[in-house]
């Protein structure tokens, strides 16, 4: 945000913050050790507001749970902003010095009264006002979010709607205040940092910037494509039109993980060439023409990963890879040789040093400085201590010569798929504590608390449908149907259904989910599909 793709704050800052908005995140289950840090903040007296359609296990620790309707985050955020302005609680000096676009923002949120937002979101007006006042008057405050914000067709709107609140109150760029997207995979931050984005080189340098390109071309000794590439969702669209005919998939299982997954499987099956490099024979690998068995990155190879607080840390080989499995570096190096480019046999450290020579935010992080506990980027020189938080420049009189941070005027948009008589329930998906994504890894151990192949529904809805706890039912969306078990859950609001996505071999849940997506982020709307639950026909016989 504001020019750098990472969360603004160090975990330990939350120990000292005064107000926490946990928005679309069930961190207690999805990021449990971050939640330990959050609990230190609560133990030290912070107030927490949990914004989530579900009364999650995280929300149960909050001072207030704001149980909004799925997909009404922008309405709620805009109403919070309007209330802060109306009550005279905006930080006018910060806005004047460090931001642009305030007038347009204020005009945009002006119609978003508390009563309007209460009607739209289902959250009582008093609770919205209480959260607005608490956030604006706090000495230090953080907004934390995860996929409850980003897995929507208007994901970017959701994110900037939250960023607006930080700009309105000056809760960013200083110790204890910040904007914290918790990352879902152990190196999704590092992947982006390393340039695994369609439009960036390592260190977030744009591919269409001639100066950046010239720098990389000089070191790589090859011309580089100046045109931004496609993100995942666009790749599937290009498969549909026939523009994309070959795919090399490394460590991803889209044949299980994609929304509207039957459609995605059809497109993968229609490719001329599919190469999969993975540690397991996933469903995607089973469809491949060539499978390259890879070593387990974090236990069988050396390298680095980067966490949600931008901390770069070493992973190290502890055990040898089995059979023919090889490290990703070896596989890619051999492939390059077959294609006519000899890159030698670089170690992980050799590649890291090359990266440091090209990415200024990593320049000051030689291998030996990462040995013990890691460093947080940006770390531009070897005498730099790393950066616990970002955007301190917002508080400098001259903004250290940078452009001010822009407000964004965004408006409420409903989930792409409306509820209808035929599909009257809202399905949202998420993680459970003991499992992970499509279960490729977490399926390997016996968890005594695993329940995951059930659909959670409110007791009233279950009663109206005439289904009992534990009963198998047919769950249908406009894209398909699956059979699964009902779990009657009083913590689920009426009209909502929830399930995890960890057990595709038991319940192919992404048959149901909606692949409507945000053209700016490329993320599908996993959080909002319309479904119907029907009783199974009794078996006669």
């Amino acid at each position, binding site marked *: 945000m504001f020019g750098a793709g990472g969360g603004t704050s160090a975990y330990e800052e939350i120990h000292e913050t005064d107000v926490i908005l946990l928005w679309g995140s069930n961190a207690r289950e999805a990021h449990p050790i971050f939640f330990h840090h959050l609990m230190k903040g609560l133990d030290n007296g912070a107030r927490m507001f949990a914004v989530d359609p579900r009364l999650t296990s995280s929300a149960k620790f909050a001072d207030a749970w704001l149980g909004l309707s799925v997909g009404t985050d922008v309405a709620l955020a805009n109403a919070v902003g309007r209330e802060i302005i109306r009550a005279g609680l905006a930080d006018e000096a910060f806005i004047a010095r460090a931001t642009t676009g305030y007038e347009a923002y204020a005009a945009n949120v002006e119609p978003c009264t508390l009563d309007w937002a209460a009607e739209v979101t289902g959250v009582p007006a008093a609770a919205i006002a209480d959260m607005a006042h608490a956030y604006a008057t706090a000495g230090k405050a953080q907004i934390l979010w995860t996929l409850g914000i980003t897995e929507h067709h208007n994901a970017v709107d959701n994110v900037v709607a939250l960023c607006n609140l930080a700009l309105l109150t000056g809760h960013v760029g200083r110790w204890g205040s910040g904007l914290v997207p918790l990352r879902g995979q152990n190196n999704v931050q590092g992947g982006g940092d390393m340039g695994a984005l369609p439009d960036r080189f390592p260190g977030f340098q744009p591919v269409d910037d001639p100066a950046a390109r010239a720098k990389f071309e000089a070191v790589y000794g090859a011309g580089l494509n100046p045109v931004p590439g496609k993100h995942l969702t666009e790749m599937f669209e290009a498969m549909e039109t026939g523009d994309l005919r070959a795919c090399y998939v490394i460590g991803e299982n889209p044949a299980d993980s994609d929304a509207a997954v039957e459609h995605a499987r059809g497109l993968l099956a229609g490719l001329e060439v599919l190469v999969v490099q993975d540690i397991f024979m996933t469903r995607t690998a089973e469809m491949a023409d060539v499978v390259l068995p890879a070593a387990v990155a974090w236990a069988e190879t050396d390298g680095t990963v980067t966490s949600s607080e931008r901390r770069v840390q070493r992973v190290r080989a502890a055990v040898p890879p089995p059979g023919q499995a090889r490290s990703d570096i070896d596989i890619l190096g051999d492939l390059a040789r077959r294609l006519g480019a000899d890159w030698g046999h670089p170690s992980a450290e050799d590649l890291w040093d090359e990266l440091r020579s090209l990415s200024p935010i990593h320049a000051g992080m030689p291998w030996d400085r990462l040995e013990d506990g890691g460093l947080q980027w940006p770390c531009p020189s070897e005498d730099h201590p790393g950066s616990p938080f970002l955007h301190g420049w917002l508080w400098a009189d001259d903004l250290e010569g940078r452009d001010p941070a822009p407000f964004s005027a965004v408006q409420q948009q409903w989930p792409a798929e409306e509820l209808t008589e035929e599909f009257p329930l809202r399905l949202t998906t998420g993680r459970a504590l003991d*499992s992970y994504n499509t279960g490729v890894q977490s399926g390997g151990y016996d968890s005594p608390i695993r329940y995951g192949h059930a659909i959670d529904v409110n007791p009233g809805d279950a009663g109206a449908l005439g289904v009992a706890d534990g009963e198998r039912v047919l769950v249908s969306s406009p894209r398909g149907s699956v059979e699964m078990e009902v779990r009657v859950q009083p913590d689920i609001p009426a009209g909502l259904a929830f399930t995890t996505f960890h057990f595709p071999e038991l319940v192919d849940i992404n048959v149901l989910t909606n692949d409507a997506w945000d053209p700016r982020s490329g993320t599908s709307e996993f959080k909002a599909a319309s479904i119907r639950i029907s009783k199974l026909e009794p078996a006669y016989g």
Partner: protein
Amino acid sequence: MDGSTPVRLTIDGQEVEAPAGSTIHAACEGAGISTPTLCWAENLTPVNVCRVCVVELEGSRALVPACSRPAEDGMEVRTDTERVRHSRRMVLEFLGSGVDLSQAESLHAWMEHYGADPDRYADEGHPVERISEPVKVQDELYVRDYEKCVLCYKCVEACGDDAQHTYAIAVAGRGFDARISTEFDVALPESACVYCGNCVGVCPTGALQFKTEFDLRQADQWRPEEQTVTRTVCSYCGVGCNLDLHVQDERIVKVTSPSDHSVTSGHLCIKGRFGWEYVHGE
């Protein structure tokens, strides 16, 4: 008062300076004087129950626990007087006379140092009465062996305010019948337990043990002297928890986390602690 001004005290006749807020234990460590501990851990709040760390403090009638007593200016502390040695020896003997300390490896050198002999309380025909009950094996993740539990409360602290905030366990019963217990003594999978294993991580006696370690010990295959420990980062969510992989015969046999790491403080979740088996899968 400036909270950063160091405190000055005397330990065993030696002038010692310690950072403000230090305990006597920390001041001793800083001065190179080691202290036996059992219920203390650097990532837990001291609960003061085992008394194995007691020291003599000038002006104090009773011995004081070094692990929790703050160091103050002008204190005169003695850690190696006859009274301290006698007290530490008897604490160790009392602990060892009630339970099996064979896997409480951190205490063995101290027991030898102080000449602690738990069996000296036995009379002919009256051996010391130790807790005796079968190991509770209820799942594949960890076991509970009450014969080894000294009720140090570390597991309760790690499950509660000091880390996990799950509060699945507490002490139930009194005296010789006191046990760390789930609510109403229900089986673990029916309790509030979320299987983070942080209780196992802090247990000093082997009363709580990872099932992998327990099985290897049962088979007489647990060989810590042959194990390597490699530090890496967990493969699941994006928090970046450091893991120490304990490897024996090219297989992971146990996962812990360093208690001085800024991300974890030594604590993990169920996935980080137990979710590594896929590395050796299929």
